């Protein structure tokens, strides 16, 4: 029986593999930028503001500035803190999902609609939690939370509308 010698098979060089993978969106970080440049300036503006909000949120979280405004600071309940951590993680997963959709330029509208509804659930339950736990006269935390969350929701809604307009125009062409 004839044995096949795998070492004798021609193998692509590193340069050839790099050349093959160059045009694949998964390995090309410029794809997000390319997709964004195809969209309207309002879409890009929404995305940039959303990213800036996320960045400032992370900075606020790690600097400890957000801690006094969280429900767990008023209730001293571990579950509140853990719930926030879990939602923080889900938030980043949602950003990752949105970025992947933009990177591949596929299903952007459905992905952001899904993110919008999850964010709405977080917003409603979070606001209700703050309303029920905040001490009398403490409105700053509630106002800040509501304004930030509503801004995120409005930006996402705008992003979805812009994507729908883009897809409609593309379809007409």
């Amino acid at each position, binding site marked *: 029986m004839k044995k096949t010698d795998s070492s004798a098979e021609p193998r692509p060089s590193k340069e050839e593999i790099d050349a093959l993978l160059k045009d694949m969106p998964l390995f090309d970080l410029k794809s997000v930028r390319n997709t964004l440049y195809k969209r309207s300036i309002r879409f890009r503006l929404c995305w940039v503001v959303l990213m800036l909000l996320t960045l400032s949120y992370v900075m606020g979280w790690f600097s400890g500035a957000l801690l006094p405004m969280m429900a767990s600071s008023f209730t001293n*309940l*571990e*579950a509140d803190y*853990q719930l926030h951590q*879990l939602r923080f993680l*889900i938030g980043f997963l949602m950003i990752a999902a949105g970025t992947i959709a933009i990177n591949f330029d596929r299903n952007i509208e459905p992905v952001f*609609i*899904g993110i919008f*509804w*999850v964010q709405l659930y977080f917003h409603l339950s979070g606001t209700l939690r703050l309303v029920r736990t905040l001490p009398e006269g403490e409105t700053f935390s509630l106002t800040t939370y509501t304004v930030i969350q509503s801004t995120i929701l409005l930006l996402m809604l705008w992003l979805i509308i812009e994507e729908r307009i883009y897809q409609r125009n593309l379809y007409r062409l």
Partner: protein
Amino acid sequence: MLKVAQAICYLFASLVIALFTLILKSDTFEPRTASAAILSQDLSTIRVWIVVIGLSVYSWRAASGHSLRLTLSVLTVVAWIMFFEDYLVLDKVLFVAQHPLATAVQVTRPAFLLAVTYVAFKQWELEDA
């Protein structure tokens, strides 16, 4: 298979609505602290509304022949997130009710999650075809 999965979803939604109606009306559950009680009450209220609204929107869209895939995807994602919240965090806060309805909800929940995920994927497949 799709019909069975849809039936599981409807069954679970009915059980949840029945259970939370019972909980909110009877006030018989025993969370660990007063703050935990408020947390579980608030989340229960929001969730039962999500189930009611989700079920109504799904039924209405199904009856009127509209596209269902996005509605189902959103409901699936929210259902999974609620499950993670319950499993990772709220398990320590919420009571374990001894009522048969609560047991039925706990038992059927994994089946519901699988069923709703299957229905969502199947719906995308059907509407793409």
